[in-house]
């Protein structure tokens, strides 16, 4: 049954009937607490990924690897990060896999892939809230490609925390074109700090932004932030 399903999967495209793939869907669910079955399933999925299967078939495989994938899947997915047809779905899987290797693969890709694909990879690092990616992202804040610099700033904002905030603060002082994005990311950091009960750190960011040099909307957001931080002490 599963053999037949994988054979059909190779030629799969999204317009065709999904019923023949039901054994794969069932195996994903059934293998939840059966390590052997899951390993076999992952091997089959990786093999499909490395074959000449259709684009839609590899797309399908990435979706399943996001659920069942382990460190064993990382190399095959990493290889796809540089492929413009498959990079997005490879990130989809790597972004959700809770292994260090998956994060490492994304960090390495962040400096290797072309700028068009890099924007997505940076977004995935942000989504993973990968603090280890901060040095890489810091370097990219001044990238000559504005979309890369912008993606790096947003990723830092998503990662949050004091370290990311410090990088953004420093960048904000010298930034020109992408300053609004950096400020936006900084506000996101402050918000995350406040939500994590770190009022003092959040307050420092808000205070630095509630100044006349900033735009009205930034001052308004920062003022609301200061009120939120200080009212907790009242």
């Amino acid at each position: 049954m599963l053999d037949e399903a994988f054979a059909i999967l190779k030629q799969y495209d999204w317009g065709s009937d999904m019923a023949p793939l039901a054994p794969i869907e069932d195996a994903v669910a059934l293998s939840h607490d059966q390590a052997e079955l899951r390993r076999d399933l992952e091997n089959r999925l990786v093999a499909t990924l490395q074959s000449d299967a259709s684009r839609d078939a590899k797309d399908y495989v990435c979706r399943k690897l996001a659920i069942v994938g382990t460190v064993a899947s990382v190399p095959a997915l990493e290889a796809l990060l540089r492929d413009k047809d498959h990079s997005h779905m490879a990130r989809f899987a790597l972004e959700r896999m809770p292994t260090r290797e998956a994060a490492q693969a994304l960090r390495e890709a962040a400096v290797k892939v072309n700028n068009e694909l890099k924007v997505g990879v940076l977004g995935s690092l942000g989504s993973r809230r990968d603090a280890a990616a901060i040095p890489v992202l810091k370097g990219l804040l001044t990238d000559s490609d504005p979309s890369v610099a912008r993606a790096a700033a947003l990723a830092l904002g998503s990662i949050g925390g004091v370290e990311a905030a410090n990088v953004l603060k420093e960048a904000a002082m010298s930034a020109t074109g992408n300053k609004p994005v950096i400020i936006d990311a900084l506000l996101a950091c402050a918000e995350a700090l406040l939500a994590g009960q770190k009022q003092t750190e959040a307050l420092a960011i808000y205070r630095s932004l509630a100044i006349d040099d900033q735009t009205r909307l930034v001052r308004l957001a920062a003022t609301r932030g200061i009120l939120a931080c200080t009212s907790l002490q009242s």
Partner: protein
Amino acid sequence: MLRRAVFGWLILGSLVLLPSATSIAADMNDEFLQLVVKLIGDSDREFRAAGLDHVRTPAGGTEGTKLFAGRLPELDSEGQTALVGALADRGDSAARPAIIALLSSSTDESVRAATISALGKLGKPADLTLLVTYLSSKSGAEQAAARATLTQMQGETINKALAAELPSVSDAIKPALIEVLSARRAGNELPAFLAASVDENAQVRSAAMAALGQLGDADQLAAMIPGILKAQQGGERDAAERSVALVCLRIDNEDQRGAKLIQALNAVDLDKRDQLLSLVGRVGGKKLIDFVGQIATGSDAERRKLGIDALSKWPDASTADKLLEIVNSTNDSAERSQAFQGYVKIAATRDQRNDRQRLDRMKQAMQAAKSNEEQLLVINRCRTAYDVETLRFVLPYVDEASFDQAACETIVELAHHREIRDPNKAEFGKALDKVIAVSKNPEAIERANRYKRGETWERKAKSAN
């Protein structure tokens, strides 16, 4: 020994650190209060809103409330209105003195209305006298705010305190104050309403009777009667009677309801009692039919007239037999005519009876009719019995010159009802052909043609004149 020394250092360390943490908190609190105070007066509405959002929360405590309220005199009208609303939402009565001061000093109507509204949440019973005076304010906004505030104010003593104001306030305020008490469902203050129900001022009386109608029960019935007698004929009297009828209808048992009302009426002087017969008609019930029936067939002609009038105003057809009995038994032609008209009116009422029962009453009326006018009246009122049998009853009159036009009108009205016209299409078709041939009314002919074609007809709205 070493452990004790370490423990001692830890205690000492925490004592040194503790004031530091406290002072940070105090600094933050101070920063918060100062920032809110600054934002309250900001010219940018969004910044001001950011400050007001925090005025609405308890943050800053009573110290904060006083600080925020202290800014009221410095703000423009828009800012004052917004801050007063936010302070009301905050719910800390520490803002009350500043709000009362603003109420007396502001010349802006919207600010005063906002302060009046705020007192609904922050005020005390001591503010009632002040708030009550705004019930007669020339400003509609202030009046509405005072009314809403007095209605919303919470506390067990509020109703009593408001009722205590009633005797001393001006006539301009009394009706509104009674309405406020009624809206507050102040059921313990009914004696105050009863006293006001015989006030010299018609508006006060009307408000009091309406309140009694909402809150009163059988115990107030007798005491409400003077309110009806004091009311002027017309709208006020009608409304007063409706209020008493409302109270009567709260007595579930029909016999008890009748007995209570009769008991209340018997307490009234005989010469005034007859004025209340129309009230009896509004309440209805078998016991009351007997009571009014005795008057309608009694020895006093003037009282008989009033009695027949009351029977004719009954809310349902339960007085029909009594009226028909008078029609058939009286020797006074005027009285007979009055009873006949009352009977036809009552018989045609669309109450709980079915259409066949209504038609049967009309047939009885036709038998009792003694003149063309009376027959015309019956033919006309047959239109309320939506039944094909009614068509069969009325149709022969189309051939009689004295009744043909009235019969045509009634047939057209019956045909208007699709639910009887459609199942009897052929029969109605022939009758409508007759109407088209006989009627002199162009509208009736047009309607007859439309109904024959299966079309509908929209009744024109009555002219305002």
